[in-house]
């Protein structure tokens, strides 16, 4: 029982980070909806642990599960047509984020904003590491168009598979 309580504590401590992730998944739009999803995701994971449908091996597993459930819920919500128009006060990067497909946005946010390892992000998204990397590349290539950098430099990145280069 003690271990179970530990998982609940882990989830509880995760709330602020999950809110950040949810807010970014909605690209800054639908603040109440994002908080709502975090609440649902946390309660869902907690009740799955309670009902023994999900037995996390460690605190990190519980953490990844919370990200997974939240990503999934947000995907459904967005497919239902929830608004993702960020208000104009947000910086360009957030508007670029809103233009990305949900999968790519989630991948980019898990890695770049939440600082998760590729393997963890792949597990959350239920895809292979290679797919994760490909989505990450696409997302970054699209967002790079927004940057102040000259876009000519970014020609090579339009190909998601990447290219080999001989160093020596």
């Amino acid at each position, binding site marked *: 029982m003690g271990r179970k309580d530990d998982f609940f504590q882990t989830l*509880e401590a995760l709330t602020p980070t999950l809110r950040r992730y949810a807010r970014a998944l909605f690209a*800054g739009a639908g603040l109440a909806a994002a908080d709502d999803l975090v609440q*649902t995701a946390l309660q869902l994971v*907690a*009740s799955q642990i309670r009902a023994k*449908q999900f037995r996390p091996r460690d605190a990190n597993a519980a953490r990844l599960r919370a990200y997974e459930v939240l990503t999934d819920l947000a995907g459904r919500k967005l497919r239902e047509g929830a608004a993702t128009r960020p208000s104009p006060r947000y910086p360009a990067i957030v508007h670029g984020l809103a233009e990305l497909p949900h999968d790519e946005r989630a991948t980019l946010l898990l890695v770049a904003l939440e600082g998760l390892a590729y393997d963890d992000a792949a597990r959350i998204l239920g895809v292979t590491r290679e797919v994760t990397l490909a989505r990450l590349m696409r997302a970054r290539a699209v967002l790079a168009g927004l940057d102040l950098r000259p876009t000519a430099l970014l020609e*090579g990145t339009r190909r998601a598979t*990447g290219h080999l280069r001989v160093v020596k």
Partner: protein
Amino acid sequence: MSLSALVEEADLHALVDGELDSERRRKVEDHLLQHPQDAALVEGWRRQNAALRAAFEHVAHETPPLSLRGAALRGGGPALGQAPIETGAIHWGRPTGPARSVRRLDELRKSRRKQTVVSLLLALVAGAAVAGAAVLALTRSPPPPPSPPAAANLSRGFIGRADVAFQTYASDARPIEFDADHKSELLAWLRGRVGFGVAPDLSGLGLRFLGGWIAPGVARPAGFLLYEREGVGRVGLYFERAEPGAAPAGPPRAAANLTAIEWRGAGMAFVLIGPLGADAMQAAAERAAAQVLAPAADAEKRR
């Protein structure tokens, strides 16, 4: 040409995301040195990461709304009897769904309102406390002794105020309001207003007592006595109520062409300030300090 010698785009991403081991990382960094185009890519992605974090980082530092606190601990039962999430068993459109989400929204609004009321009350209480403290501080008399930080500020300012008093009074050629002939009158006045009324006799050092004034101090008015060495210049003795403690360490600070020496005693801070040489000033300060402390010691003995 081994495979590890090749750097592909994936490696550049992995570098940005901290996914490389140190050896591989060194290799990719070497590669970037020789390929400024790739270095620019990496730089651009790092900038993206920073922009993302800047846009959303604040959310993680906010206090979550009341409705979210304890969400994991409260649990709630939506998943009971449902298959695990991967099978897609969460139906937003299931019959009980809308009612639940509407209720949750209501709770959310209610809790937000509660939050607003609570913070409003807290603000009112804090405001009342501040106002009460201000009234207390303003109406209390005599003013409370300065708290330690204030005293620290004051102690930094004694020499500065002595300097001002010196500049104001010492150069004035007009007759002094209380000259040496009215010394006892002056000392009684200083004792009443400043809390200290002793004029050290420095005639042994060639410093003739000229007279004195009350000068502005911070906690209470300060006293300022003036001495003169014929043909050389005037020396001022400034004293103000101060917390007992050591005078600031360090050599006597010279203000412009002046020498100022500060010391503490008898609950006062003393500053001797004047244009004499450092040695002469030091001797005068020692003489004054000895005389200033002597009456207090006598008073102790008599008691």
